[in-house]
């Protein structure tokens, strides 16, 4: 049994740009902005960084392949820099790599930085997937999109628990309305308007049964984290946060190719949750987790995650949602930042941005959306689609 990295690594500095439709900013502008905030926050200089990981997905959006874009933008002095691409979970993957580097002793200080410029595609939403995956996939798979991939989970979940489309959509609307509210309290969020449940219910359908407000913002942005070994953290700041566990689970193909999966949950979230809880020593998640940031690319993803992370019992998420359990003033606030829904989703940056929110909350710097005395925060970062994906779950805490 691996012993994991619980309490081996600390986050000592973070940075995050405002997310949004940043028409007049380049990837370079965003990388520099996130980096400068993180370095200043950690109180270090560029030369102190021993290794870096760069998360970005759509190289066509002016970032290009490989890690050289990060190295050349920041003029990193011939240190190891690696690009990570693992769907939308790339940000947490870069963070995981940086944590392992310092935990192993290969580096004393490591940087994880994610950036994406999605608003240079010329259309809303992410690019289609079916046509871009090579000839055999182009022929054998539907030309599916992200909303189409997740909407299927909604139809399966509604069918399994006997929810009408109206009942199901109303629970999802509560999630989106809550995240929009949280986003209004966050100056860096992409979308900062209240959206009432009724407006969400009536919105145009993007992929049945998901409407416009069930879908997250597609944004430009960058986020960065600087980590070191936990025992050195206090040299840099008095209030570092500590990494309790970082787990990732990747689809085996069972969901897409074997009839044993019913489409009403995300198998990898379940596994990544179990692994992260084990590494962090969490045995009663519903009681121990103070708050969490999840990958609400679509409202249905957030609903499934409540159950998959053992916070809501199977089939009981709707009840918890309507009881306000996950609202900002609820028992376990979910997506206090506004989530992907309203903070936005520049893919490569998202996983690190989630940790950024937990970092601010644990340090008591979350302004109007500050949660009272949180001890343990969780992030869940998803890449892919319910039927074929990978999930990163990380747990961070205030205390060693």
């Amino acid at each position, binding site marked *: 049994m691996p012993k994991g990295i619980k309490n081996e690594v600390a986050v000592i500095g973070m940075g995050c740009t405002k997310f949004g439709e940043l028409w007049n900013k380049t990837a370079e502008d965003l990388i520099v902005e996130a980096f400068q905030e993180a370095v200043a926050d950690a109180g270090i200089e560029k030369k102190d960084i021993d290794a870096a990981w760069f998360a970005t997905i759509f190289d066509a959006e002016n970032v290009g392949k490989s890690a050289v874009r990060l190295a050349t933008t920041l003029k990193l002095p011939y240190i190891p820099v690696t690009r990570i691409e693992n769907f939308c979970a790339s940000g947490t993957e870069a963070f995981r790599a940086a944590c392992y580097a310092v935990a192993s002793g290969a580096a004393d200080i490591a940087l994880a930085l994610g950036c994406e410029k999605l608003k240079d595609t010329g259309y*809303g939403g992410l690019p289609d997937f079916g046509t871009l995956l090579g000839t055999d996939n182009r*022929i054998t798979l*539907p030309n599916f999109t992200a909303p*189409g*991939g997740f909407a*299927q989970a909604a139809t399966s979940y509604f069918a399994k628990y006997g929810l009408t489309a109206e009942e199901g959509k109303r629970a999802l609307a509560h999630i989106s309305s809550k995240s929009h509210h949280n986003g209004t309290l966050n100056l860096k969020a992409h979308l900062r308007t209240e959206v009432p449940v009724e407006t969400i219910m009536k919105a145009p359908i993007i992929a049945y049964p998901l409407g416009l407000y069930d879908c997250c913002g597609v944004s430009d942005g960058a986020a960065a984290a600087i980590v070191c070994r936990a025992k050195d953290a206090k040299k840099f700041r008095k209030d570092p946060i500590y990494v309790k566990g970082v787990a990732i689970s990747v689809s*085996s193909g069972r969901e897409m*190719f074997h009839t044993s999966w019913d*489409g009403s949950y995300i198998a990898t979230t379940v596994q990544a949750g179990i692994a992260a809880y084990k590494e962090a020593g969490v045995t009663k998640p519903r009681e121990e987790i103070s708050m969490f940031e999840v990958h609400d690319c679509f409202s249905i993803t957030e609903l499934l995650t409540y159950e998959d992370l053992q916070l809501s019992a199977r089939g009981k998420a709707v009840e918890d949602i309507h009881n306000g359990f996950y609202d900002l003033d609820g028992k376990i606030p979910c997506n206090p930042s506004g989530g992907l829904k309203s903070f936005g989703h520049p893919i490569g940056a998202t996983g690190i941005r989630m940790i950024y929110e937990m970092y601010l909350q644990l340090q008591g710097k979350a302004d109007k959306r500050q949660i009272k005395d949180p001890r343990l925060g969780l992030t869940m970062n998803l890449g892919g689609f319910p039927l074929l994906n990978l999930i990163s779950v990380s747990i961070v805490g205030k205390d060693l």
Partner: protein
Amino acid sequence: MAGITSYGAYIPWYRMNRKVIFEQMGWFNAATAGVARGEKAVANYDEDTISMACSAALDCMTGQRREDVDGLYLASTSLPFAQRQNAIVISDALDLRSNVRTADFAGALKAGTAALLAALDAVGSGNGASWMVAAGECRVGKPGSAQEHTFGDGAGALMVGTKKVIAEFKGSYSVSYDFLDYRRLTEERFVHPWEDRWIREEGYGKIIPEAAQGLLKKYNLKMSDFAKIIIPCPMTNWIRGFAKALGAKDEQVEDNLQAAVGDTGAALPLMMLVAALEKAKAGDRILLLSYGNGSDALWFEVTPEIEKARGRKAIQGHLAKRNDFNTYGKYLVFRDLIPLEVGIRGEINPPTAMTVLWQQGRTISALVGVRCKACGTPQYPKHSVCVNPECGAIGQMEPYRFADKAGKVVSFTGDNLTFSWDPPSIYGLVDFEGGGRLFMDFTDCRIEDVKVGMPVELTYRRKYSDKQRGYYGYYWKVVPAKG
């Protein structure tokens, strides 16, 4: 003795009331009021001659063994490919053996009966035991023309052989003329017609009778010897008098399908024959005539085996499954008659790797997946390592056909974001009878028709077009199953 051993047909789901066309284009050509009656069958955006003829051939495979088929002929004047044999695409989709003889028959509207005669010759001369003949058309009438009204889309298929014959082939008589009623150059889309009165009187009115009478004389028959006479002429008003001139009574004349389908060109005689066989009884004699640069006359005698050849969709089954298609603009888009702002998403068109198609072979064309010999789990596409989490055996796979399996919906959506010629794009996970799961496109349905757990069946469609590089990709989709 050679004859027909099986039959099948295909008519697309979409039916357009011809008044819709007249409302849009009658201002220009008021004379089309005469043909603006009834419905025409319209191929969906993902259908063409290959996909429809393949669907008819699949219907015709009902009760047949793929291994027994020695050849496949395809007839049409609207073949998608000028080079890449169209027939082989269907032969592969049906998962026929590789040592089969395949050919395209084209050029004339009598290509359907030409292919049928060639197949009958092949099995009659002992060159094969069983031969598939499919004919399909997806002809586009020029906007404003009478053909825009009369042309319809559809396909028919016949299996011919020497055993278990349902309609014995008794003989034929053919005439060939360079009669220039309609013509079209290889690079053209639309036919050039000469005056319709001339075509009617000197073409249909003289050439079909010459073939029919030649056959009667050759075999010493009378028109009254036939239970059904198939006259594939789209001129419905005129056909009754024409039949009378031939010496046929009204009840002998098979419906020309113009009220519900339209003129399916080279496929029309075969489709009408299929309709006749659906209601035929042992002992019936059928006179099949074709038209186009001459005429072929063939006659058949139905055998008691006909009663064993039921249980397929054929013409009546397809006529019953329909959906109104009353948007002329959508019709123009489906047939690529007007440019559409497809947006940046729609413009994305990566090249197709021909090497990959060759590597995938029947996996893509015939939907042949694999089954694990260790645990029996069917899976698609080809996997080396068994996907069953309880098994995981490596290299234990044998081929497994999904194409004839029924499915059930696990999850679905109607996607308005992705590029589709007919949004929303409906797709989802489908589990198949006997095991196996595929992530598939749905077609010929509305989002409100789809439910989790709903039964679906497979259909062969054109998945995408790459006109820039001369390629159409074909694949399988699912449609809601009847019942």
